[in-house]
């Protein structure tokens, strides 16, 4: 697991107040929404803010979100390719 994967999991736990969850409990390929981690639309807004705040990535097309926020792996891939900080 890369540092970015771990960092992302920590940020998600903190930002989304997943108090009972540990980094080790989130699988890299686990779905973040729906029957995976169970995140919802308010969490999606928080993740958009997280991308911009921590990695300088502004999502221009909201439709991209579904693909990017599929799992920790897809988020990490997108950040690696587009990060400005």
């Amino acid at each position, binding site marked *: 697991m890369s540092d970015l994967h771990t960092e992302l999991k920590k940020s998600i736990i903190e*930002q*989304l*107040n*997943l*108090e*009972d969850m540990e980094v080790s409990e989130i699988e890299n390929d686990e779905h973040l929404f729906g029957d995976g981690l*169970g995140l*919802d639309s*308010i969490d999606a*807004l*928080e993740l958009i*803010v997280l991308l*911009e*705040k921590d990695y300088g990535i502004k999502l221009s097309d909201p439709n991209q979100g579904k693909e990017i926020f599929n799992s920790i792996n897809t988020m990490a891939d997108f950040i690696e390719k587009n990060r400005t900080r």
Partner: protein
Amino acid sequence: MSKIYINGISSVSPQSEDIFEEENPLVYKENTLTALDQDYKSIINSMMLRRMSKAVKMGLYCSKKALLEAEVEIPDAILVGTGQGCMQDTEKFMTNMLESEEGLLSPTSFIQSTHNTVGGQIALDLKCKGYNMTFTQNSVSFESALLDAILQMEDESTQNILVGGVDETSQEFTGFQRLDAQIKKENISNLDLYKSESSGTIISESAAFFSLAPEKKASSYAEFKDVEIINSIEISGLNSKIELFLKRNNTSVSEIDAVILGRNGDARFDHYYEELQNGMFLAKCQLGFKHLVGENNAVSSYAFWLASKILKEKQIPEIFKLNTLNCSAPGKVLIYNQYLGRNHGLILLQSL
């Protein structure tokens, strides 16, 4: 108008609910009292719970417990009184705003900062699509919700109403209440509140919710008779206002067994209560509650909880008494509360 029965009650405050039976008050040495933590996870989904501020947690917790006791799954209406609303989330997003220099803001605290978040979250959790209203009227917020409950009950199809009051403290905003002496400058013990001769009071957070219905059950607590809101009144007009309120309900001072007063130790405004204590209710059992649970804009809902318990259990715990008179079989209880000499509320409850 049909009768209104109180079929389920629940409260969260700086004191445990068993204070009524145990009379074991918690003593606080600071002037801001936080509500006792509850086992919220036992009845609130943890994925919902993670975003909830204290007001939402307390409100939803009490709502579910009151409905459970009344064996109601989904009420026809949800009515919430809150004077300050969700202050913790308001403070959070405003702090974020300052720290990010009005840049990127976390949306959750902003979304949840409105006063009607509590009512909304209760409805979401219960999947209740019925009438949902939040009242913000300073210290008569709960009384306003009760008034709406009476109006809603006039609709014969209404079977159950959830009504409650909730207010939370927040680190910075609550502190602002020191600036205009709403909070006492010197720290005092809550149990010494009525000995205090200074300005201000002790501020707290609390919630109390009730399941009301036109049908009486074997487990019902009491009958909720009436509520009156008086925004502004001189002390000299208080007696006649109360007499009129009682007359409207076909009763009189002589038939009142106990009066619950919102005395809060603020030397500037407690004379409203003293007028009644030394006057029309001199020979009645007088009760206080703010030396135990503090002051907030929705705390009259705690008095409603206390009156419901008294009328069901037919006893008055010593810890609440302001005088030494006894009342062996309380039948009618009047609640009188005001804050800063404004927004006076009268509530009348009767035993079954």
